C-alpha cells in the first residue's frame, strides 16, 4: 500500500515503465483515517481523565478527614469552676449546666503557660478547643461526680481551625488577620505537637456523631443509619414486588391492552427524573397519608417506587435468559404453570435478579434529589431509633456539608463522599462476584 502512495513522485521522476496513476487522494484519506482514530482515542482519554480528576479531587481533599486532631493533657476538674457554691447535692441541674469549656481552657492554658489574667491569651487558647468538650466533660462528670476536684488525663477534640492548621490545610504565608488561626496559636500548636499533647487519632466521630455546626464534631452516624433503614425498606419492598411483577409480565401475561399499558408504564417510569418521585412522595406520603416528614420510612417508600422499574427490567431479562426447554421439561412432567415458574425458572434466574437488585439499590443509595423534597435535609443530632424518626441520608448529608462555608467542612464532605463511594464499590463488586460465581450460560 505504501508504494501506491509514493507513485506520484515516481511519475514525476520520469519512470515510464509503469503507467501513470491517478491521484485518488490516498494520502489525504489515510490522514483522515488517522485523525478519526485519534479523535476516538482522545474521547476515551477525555472521559477517563475526568474520572481520574474527579476521584483524585475527592480523595486528595478527603483522605485527611479520617484523622482528627486531639489534645491529650491533664485536666483539673476544678470545683471552683464547675460547682462554685457546692450545690450539686441539692441541684443536680448544676452539673449539667456547668461551664465545662472553661475547665478545658484552663487546663490547656496551664500547659501552655498562659497567665490566668491574660484575657486575650485565654481567648486564643479557647479558640484551640472544640466546643464539643462541653458535652464530653459533662457526660464524664455526670457519670462520675467524684472526679470533681481531681486531675485526670483527658483526650478531647481540638478546634476545627487548629485541626486544619495541623493538617497543613491553612496557608500560613497569608497575612495573620486573613486566616483563621493566629501566629500565637500556631506557635502553641507546635509546642503541643513537640510535647506530644496534640496528635492525630483515627476519626471515629466521623462515623458515630450526628449533625453538628462545628466541623470537628460533625459526623455521618445519623446519615449512615438513615441510609441503612432506607436500603432495608427498599430491599424488603422492591425485591418481592419487582419479582412478582416481572413473573406476571414475563410468564403469565396475555398479550392485551392491559399488559401493553403496564409495559409502556414501566419503561417510562425508568426514565422519569428522580426529583419527580420526590414530589410524588411529598404529595402522597407526607401530605395525603400523613407520614412524618424527614422520616426514613417515607424516603424508603419513595426510593422503592424509583427502584422498582430498574429491578423489573433486570428481572425480566434474567427470566428471559432461562431457556424454554426448562419450562417444557417441567410442564411435561406434570407441573402446573405456577410450579414451573416458582420451582424451576425462578431459582435459575435468581443470580441475575439479585445482581439487578444490588445495582438498583446502589443507585437508590446515591440518590439525593427526592430526599431533599421530603424533608430529609434536617439537622438531626440523635441517631434515629426507628424508621419513623427524623433522619438524614448519606448523599443528603454530603449536600448539606457541601453548602457549609467553613473550610473544614470541605474535608468532611470529601470524606463523606469517600464513605459513600466505598459503599457503592462494595455493592457493585458484590454484584459482579455474584454474577461471576452463579451466572450460567445456556
Amino acid at each position, binding site marked *: 500500500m505504501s508504494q501506491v502512495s509514493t507513485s506520484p513522485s515516481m511519475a514525476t521522476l520520469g519512470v515510464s515503465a509503469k503507467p501513470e496513476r491517478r491521484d485518488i487522494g490516498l494520502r489525504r*484519506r489515510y490522514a*483522515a*483515517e488517522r*485523525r*478519526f*482514530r485519534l*479523535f*476516538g482515542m482522545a*474521547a*476515551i482519554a477525555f*472521559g*477517563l481523565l475526568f*474520572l481520574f*480528576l474527579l476521584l483524585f*479531587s*475527592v480523595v486528595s481533599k478527603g483522605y485527611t478527614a479520617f484523622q482528627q486532631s486531639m489534645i491529650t493533657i491533664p485536666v483539673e476538674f476544678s470545683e471552683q469552676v464547675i460547682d462554685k457554691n457546692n450545690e450539686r447535692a441539692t441541684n443536680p441541674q448544676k452539673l449539667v449546666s456547668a461551664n465545662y469549656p472553661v475547665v478545658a481552657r484552663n487546663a490547656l492554658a496551664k500547659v501552655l503557660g498562659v497567665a490566668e489574667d491574660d484575657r486575650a491569651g485565654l481567648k486564643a487558647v479557647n479558640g484551640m478547643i472544640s466546643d464539643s468538650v462541653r458535652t464530653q466533660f459533662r457526660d464524664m462528670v455526670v457519670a462520675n461526680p467524684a472526679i470533681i476536684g481531681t486531675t485526670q488525663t483527658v483526650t478531647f477534640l481540638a478546634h476545627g481551625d487548629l485541626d486544619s492548621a495541623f493538617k497543613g490545610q491553612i496557608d500560613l504565608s497569608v497575612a495573620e488577620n486573613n486566616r483563621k488561626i493566629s501566629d500565637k496559636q500556631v506557635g502553641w500548636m507546635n509546642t503541643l505537637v513537640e510535647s506530644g499533647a496534640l496528635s492525630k487519632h483515627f476519626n471515629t466521630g466521623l462515623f458515630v456523631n450526628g449533625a453538628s455546626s462545628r466541623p470537628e464534631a460533625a459526623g455521618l452516624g445519623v446519615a449512615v443509619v438513615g441510609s441503612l433503614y432506607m436500603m432495608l425498606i427498599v430491599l424488603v419492598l422492591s425485591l*418481592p414486588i*419487582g419479582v*412478582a*411483577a*416481572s413473573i*406476571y409480565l414475563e410468564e*403469565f401475561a396475555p398479550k392485551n391492552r392491559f399488559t401493553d*399499558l403496564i409495559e409502556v*408504564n414501566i*419503561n*417510562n*417510569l425508568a*426514565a*422519569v*427524573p*428522580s426529583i*419527580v*418521585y*420526590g*414530589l*410524588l412522595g*411529598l*404529595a*402522597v406520603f407526607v401530605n*395525603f397519608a400523613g407520614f412524618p416528614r424527614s422520616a426514613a420510612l417515607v424516603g424508603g417508600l419513595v426510593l422503592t417506587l424509583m427502584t*422498582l*422499574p430498574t429491578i423489573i427490567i433486570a428481572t425480566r431479562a434474567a427470566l428471559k435468559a432461562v431457556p424454554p426447554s426448562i419450562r417444557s421439561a417441567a410442564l411435561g412432567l406434570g407441573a402446573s*404453570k*405456577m410450579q414451573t415458574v416458582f420451582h424451576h425458572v425462578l431459582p435459575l434466574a435468581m443470580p441475575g435478579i439479585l445482581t439487578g437488585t444490588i445495582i438498583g439499590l*446502589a443507585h437508590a443509595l446515591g440518590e*439525593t*434529589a427526592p430526599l*431533599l*423534597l421530603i424533608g430529609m*435535609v434536617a439537622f438531626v443530632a440523635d441517631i434515629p431509633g426507628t424508621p419513623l424518626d427524623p433522619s438524614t441520608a448519606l*448523599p443528603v448529608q*454530603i*449536600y448539606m456539608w*457541601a453548602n457549609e462555608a467553613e473550610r473544614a467542612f470541605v474535608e468532611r*464532605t*470529601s470524606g463523606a*463522599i469517600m464513605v*459513600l463511594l466505598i459503599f457503592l464499590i462494595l455493592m*457493585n463488586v458484590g454484584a459482579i462476584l455474584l454474577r461471576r460465581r452463579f451466572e450460567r450460560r445456556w
Partner: protein
Amino acid sequence: MSISLLLLVVAVIGAVGYFIGSWRANALAGGKLSSLHSRPGYYGSFVALWAILPAVVVVFVWVIASPIYVNSTIRAGFPEEVKAEPQATQNLNYNMISAIARGFKVLTAEEREALFKDGAAARDVLASKGVPVAAEPAPYMLKSADDLNRMTNTSSTLLSILAIVVATAGAFLSYRSIAPKFRARNRVEGMMLVGLIAASSIAILTTVGIVASMFTEAVHFFNMVPAWEFFFGTVWDPRFAAAGATASAGQFGLIPLLAGTLYIGFVAMLVAVPVGLFAAIYMSEYASRHVRSVAKPLLEVLAGIPTIVYGFFALVTVGPFLRDISAQLNGLVTGNYSNFIQAQSVLTAGFVMGIMLIPYVSSLSDDIITAVPRALRDGSLGLGATRSETIKRVILPAALPGIVGALLMTASRAVGETMIVVLAAGVAARMQLNPFEPMTTVTVKIVNQLTGDLEFTSPQTLVAFALGITLFFITLCLNIYALYIVRKYREQYE
C-alpha cells in the same frame, strides 16, 4: 394491642392453620398421597391464606377508617362557638387535643382527676411530663382529649377482637372444606396469580399517583396564579410565603427557568455527544478486545457515581478552576485580573453534567453500532473504503435512528438532572445568553421552593408541583419521541 402485635398474632394463626391443614390432608389420604388432588402443603397454604388475607384486609381498612371516624366524632363534640371558628383554627385545636391525649397516657389516674378539677394547671403538669402543649388548654379540650383516648382504646380493642375472629373463622371455614377431591392447588395458585397481577399494577398506580398528585396540586396553584402567567411569564420572583397573607404578590414565570434548563442541557450535550459518540465508535470499531475490556467498564463507572458527587466536584474543583483561569486569561490580555467566568455558571454546570452523560451516550450508541450487521462493514471495506469512511458513510447512517433515540433519552436525563445544577448553576432566574454567568433551572427551583417550611396553601409551595408536572411532561415527550423515532426509522436487516 398494637397493630404490629396484632399482625403477628394473625400470622401465628395462619402458621397454625398451615400445619393443621397439611396434617388434615395427610390424615384424609391415610398414607396414600395419590388419593389427594393436591400435595398436602397446598391444603395447608389454602387454610393459611384464608386465615391471613381477610384479617389483614380488615386491619388495613380499620386503620384507615377508624382515625377518620374518631376525628369527626370528636369534632362533632366541640362546643358550638368553637365549631363556628375557621377550619384552620379547628385543626389547631384538634392537634392540641391529641397532644393532651398523649399526655394523659403518661399521667396516673389521680393526676388526671386533679387536672379535671383544676384545669388551669394542665399545661404545666403536661410539660413536666415531657408533653409540650402549644397553649393553655380550654376546659372542653380536656374532656375531648379524654374522649379521644377512650375512643382510640375502644377502637383498638374492637379491632383486635374482630381481626382475631376473622382470622380464626377464615381458618376454620377453609379447614372444613378440605376433602381429597378438593382442588387446593388450583385455588392457591389462583390467589398467587392475583397477587402477581396486583404487584405489576403498582407500576400503573405509580404513574397515576405521579400524574394525579401533581395535577391536583398544580390545579390549586393555577387557581391562584393564571396558567398563562405561569407558562409565558418572563419573570421569576416568587417572594416568600407570608404566614396568613392570602394575596400573593409573587411572579411565577416559567420561561427563565426553562431557558436555563435548556441552555445548560445544551452545553452538556455539546460536551457529551461528541465525546460519547467518538468513544463508542472507537470502542466498537477500533479498540482491541483487551483495551475494550478495560476502557468500557471504566467509562461506565462515570455513570455509577452519584450526581451529588458531580455537584460537589463542580462546586469545589471545576467552578473555582474556571473562575481562576478566566481571571488569568483576562489579566494576560487586558491586564485586568478580574474573572469573566463566575464560579457558578452555565458553563460549569453544563460541562460537569456533560461528563456525567458521556457513559450514557457511549454505552447506548455502542450497543447500536455493534448491532449493525457485519456484512455492511465487509462490503464497504471490500470496495476499498477506509475504516473511517465505512463508519461515516455506512455504519452511522445505518445506526442513525438508534443514535438519535439514544441522544434524546440522554437529553431527557439532562433536563431532569438536579444535584449538579443545584450546586453549580446558581439560583438567579435570569434570561441571558452569556454561558459564563449563572442561570437557574426548573429542578433547582423545585428544590428551592420545597426545602424549609411548607405550606400547602401558598402558591410559593404549590408552584413546585406545576414545575414538576411540566418537567414530567417534557421528559415523557422526549422519551416517547425517542421510542417513536427508533421504531419508525429502524433499518430492517435480514
